């Protein structure tokens, strides 16, 4: 099942690349670099998520960053709503 997902992801990324790459003119170096970096990022993240579905996500990061504030506002809201 996991290998089917890997195959699917690779197919989609290859289709995107085949569609977009010919439209990039030779002088568009920045665009080519941006496209390549984003596609590689896509592939890496997709494979990581296939094999480690419990990978800590951005939500956990925000949770950790805003913990004290969330607590403060949670208390405030509880107090206000009576």
């Amino acid at each position, binding site marked *: 099942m996991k290998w089917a997902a890997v195959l699917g992801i690779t197919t989609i990324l290859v289709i995107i690349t085949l569609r*977009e790459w010919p439209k990039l003119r030779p002088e568009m170096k920045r665009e080519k670099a941006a*496209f390549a970096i984003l596609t590689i990022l*896509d592939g890496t993240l997709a494979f990581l998520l296939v094999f480690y579905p419990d990978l800590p*996500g951005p939500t956990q990061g925000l*949770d950790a960053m805003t913990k004290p504030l969330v607590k403060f506002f949670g208390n405030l*809201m509880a107090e206000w*709503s009576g």
Partner: protein
Amino acid sequence: MVESGKISASQAGKLLYLTVIPTAILTSPVMIFKVAKQDLWISPILAWSGLITVFIALRLHRMFPGENIIQAGERIIGKFLGKMVGLIFPLFYLYLNGIVVREYGEFVVGALLVNTPLIVVLGSMVLVCAIVVRGGIEIVGRFAELFLPAFITLFLLIIVPIIPDLNISNMLPVMGEGIAPSLAGTLVLQLWFSEFITYSFILPFVTDQKNAAKSIMVALGAVILTLVVSNLATLLLLGELTGNYAYPFLILARYINLAEFFTHLESLFMAIWVLGAFVKICAFFYVTVLSAAQWMNLSDYKPIVYPLGFLLILVSLWVAPNYQEMTRAISTSVNLSIFTVFVAIPVLLFGLACVKKAVHKNKTRG
């Protein structure tokens, strides 16, 4: 110039209305009801971050014509810091859009297409949105203009038939415990009203600038009115039960029974939801793509639309393991961080811009 398309002020207003309202109708009643109880309909009126963000978007655009908040930020706090702030915006729009896409998917799968895998629902929506965003701001604006009448008609089709069944005593006592509970409810609503900062990214493409302020104020008023009506209808029909449902507005649509003939109108609500979510995802996706392209100094944003769309699907699956976990995050950490990025940072930038302008004026005078 990354974008060559232009839209009219009224299209921009309609786009902003449809950008803010869909998820607000769907999920906000439960979240506000938890804190504000029967005063949940007062909270949208008191939510102030909409006014602040609209004001800042308009004033910053007047100070730096033709530039959005990121470009203006680079001028206010310098190239390096401006780039740092400029990276936060696309990342946050991507993340927030991931949440919206996931909400859309969870709702469609939970309420209608029970046996369809989530990834198929998410993927098809993101693909359609990517095609639209690739077409540019004009296409996004026209879709908003096209869908708004349908959206409002369907909304009224749900509200009007249940009017005879509304029970006024459900909203009593009004402000029984003072204004504090409804103020606590506004803290939840900041999440949606702060999304009005999106206007800063749309403003540079508006052709008739003199109507821009008017159309956005109409959009803000319409959002407040729609939320008051939908929250009030939910409350008057369901009363204390409002907090028990995941999607109270869906229950409203299910409740409609006209002459034993028009029943099970939740498909109407599904139509509203798909139209609204489509415009919302398009708008956020457009801002993500545009600000990412500007951040990387690209001459064209079209090449990065599909890779970012793929990333959007990944993020939407990555934000939370399930719907309950996501709603918890939305009402706590996501709400606060969105408030920081969409309200606090713009306020800070605007304050600095004002100070800089005043100092500059003094220098030239003295």
